[in-house]
């Protein structure tokens, strides 16, 4: 059943984030800031740019290898959301038919270039975002957001989302199984029963929310949750941040691929 698989997949990302590697130990604040700046740099490129985007793959590859994250897990997730990017760019080749370059004599229109550029930017940004979650524990991210003056209400919502996502999925999974066990052939699997299932799930969630609120009240909740503070900046974190941001800056302003190509040409000649 695909639902089961997806569920365990979600837990898988959570398991990965509990590893202990060089990247996992970096302060979450630094990781969030660096990843955010990385995304800004990537999207700042011109719409026809392709070659100078390539060196930017260094950052996600660094997170992937140093964080000991299996490539397949991330690739799957990126593929999962790829239709969005595909549909954003899919009409570009039709509208923009002006030929921009013709490498090896093949004319390439601006539409295809910008389409490819969108896809590359998509892969870069989304894989970085997913890797950020995979190498940082979720509570860590929340604490970092809180420390960076993100509105507390928002942070607390995220914390609760993380905590009850698993519970909710578990409930949904059990309901799906129960339906499966009593439906035969196509019967019982119609969209109509699915709608009922979802509505029951909603009601159950509301009721659970009420019980959780009671539990919070019993333990002295008065409208404020204090998030535990355990983050400490280490020298390595600063070095990592400074190093990677300088690198992004250099990659943005100097076309490394071009320079390397030119250098190679000179050597070969």
């Amino acid at each position, binding site marked *: 059943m695909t639902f089961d698989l997806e569920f365990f997949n979600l837990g898988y990302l*959570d398991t990965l984030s509990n590893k202990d590697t060089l990247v996992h130990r970096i302060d979450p604040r630094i990781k969030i800031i660096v990843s955010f700046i990385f995304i800004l740099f990537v999207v700042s490129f011109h719409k026809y740019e392709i070659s100078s985007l390539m060196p930017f793959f260094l950052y996600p590859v660094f997170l992937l290898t140093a964080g000991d994250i299996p490539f397949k897990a991330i690739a799957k997730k990126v593929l999962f959301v790829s239709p969005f990017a595909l549909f954003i760019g899919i009409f570009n080749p039709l509208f923009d038919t002006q030929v921009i370059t013709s490498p090896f004599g093949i004319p390439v229109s601006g539409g295809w270039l910008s389409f490819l550029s969108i896809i590359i930017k998509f892969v870069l940004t989304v894989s970085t975002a997913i890797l950020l979650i995979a190498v940082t524990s*979720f*509570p860590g991210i*929340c604490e970092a957001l809180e420390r960076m003056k993100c509105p507390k209400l928002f942070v607390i919502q995220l*914390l*609760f989302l*993380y*905590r*009850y996502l*698993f*519970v909710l999925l578990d409930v949904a999974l059990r309901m799906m199984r129960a339906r499966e066990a009593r439906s035969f052939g196509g019967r019982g699997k119609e969209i109509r029963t699915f709608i009922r299932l979802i509505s029951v799930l909603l009601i159950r969630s509301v009721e*659970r929310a009420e*019980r*959780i609120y*009671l*539990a*919070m*009240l*019993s*333990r*002295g*909740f*008065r409208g404020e*949750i*204090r*998030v*535990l503070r355990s983050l400490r900046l280490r020298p390595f974190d600063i070095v990592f941040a400074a190093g990677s941001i300088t690198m992004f800056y250099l990659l943005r302003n100097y076309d490394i691929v071009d320079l390397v190509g030119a250098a190679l040409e000179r050597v070969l000649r």
Partner: protein
Amino acid sequence: MSHHIVELKDVCYAYPDGTEALKGITFRILHGEAVGLVGTNGAGKTTLLLNLNGHLIPTKGEIAVGEVPLSKGTRQEIRRKVGFVFQRPDDQLFMPTVYEDVAFGPINLGLTEEKVEERVTKALEMVGCLHLRNRPPHRLSEGQKRSVAIATVMAMKPDILVMDEPGSNLDPKSRRQLINLLKGFRHTKIIASHDLDMILDVCERCIIIKDGKVVADGPSEELLLNETLLEENNLELPLSRQCRPVKRPS
């Protein structure tokens, strides 16, 4: 020490939809007493417990916890005294890690950081879950969740412990550990459960509720072994007291 008394006088509660769940309940629980609350499904046990903690306010009658009468204004004070362990640990454990969850109550009580740390460690040690402190609650087994849920309440040092079905969904060994844990607490305890054996083990006194009324109140050994009384209330003898013929291979 007479200040941990729980007193109910003719307590009635009707839900907003008109269902009368409690119809005049009166009892008095003394300091250090362990009381089992027994009754069928829908007898009003959970409603009664929610009233004890001020989550629901009686529509009629009076509740006093440690000589403080329960009202909207005194709810906070009463919640500080009454530690409530909910039926489903997933409802009780809402923070991202075990440590933070146990720390939630003490932090809200306004304790200093060192005090919080000390209380959390002690509470987790008490239930034997200190090694789980950095785990997220969704990665725990049902038994572990239950123990941690008890720790969250113990960390607040309540005078009175109120538990709703503490033994449900536990395997025999975890259940036995829970019983031993409960026996070790010197608090006033109010435990609602269908597990009559557990009540017999933990509580010296037992109150039987049926249709929102108290039908019997007395020593557990007496009430829970009275077959006619139990059957009248749709209950049956604790399993340990039932004589079952042992099948022998012939």
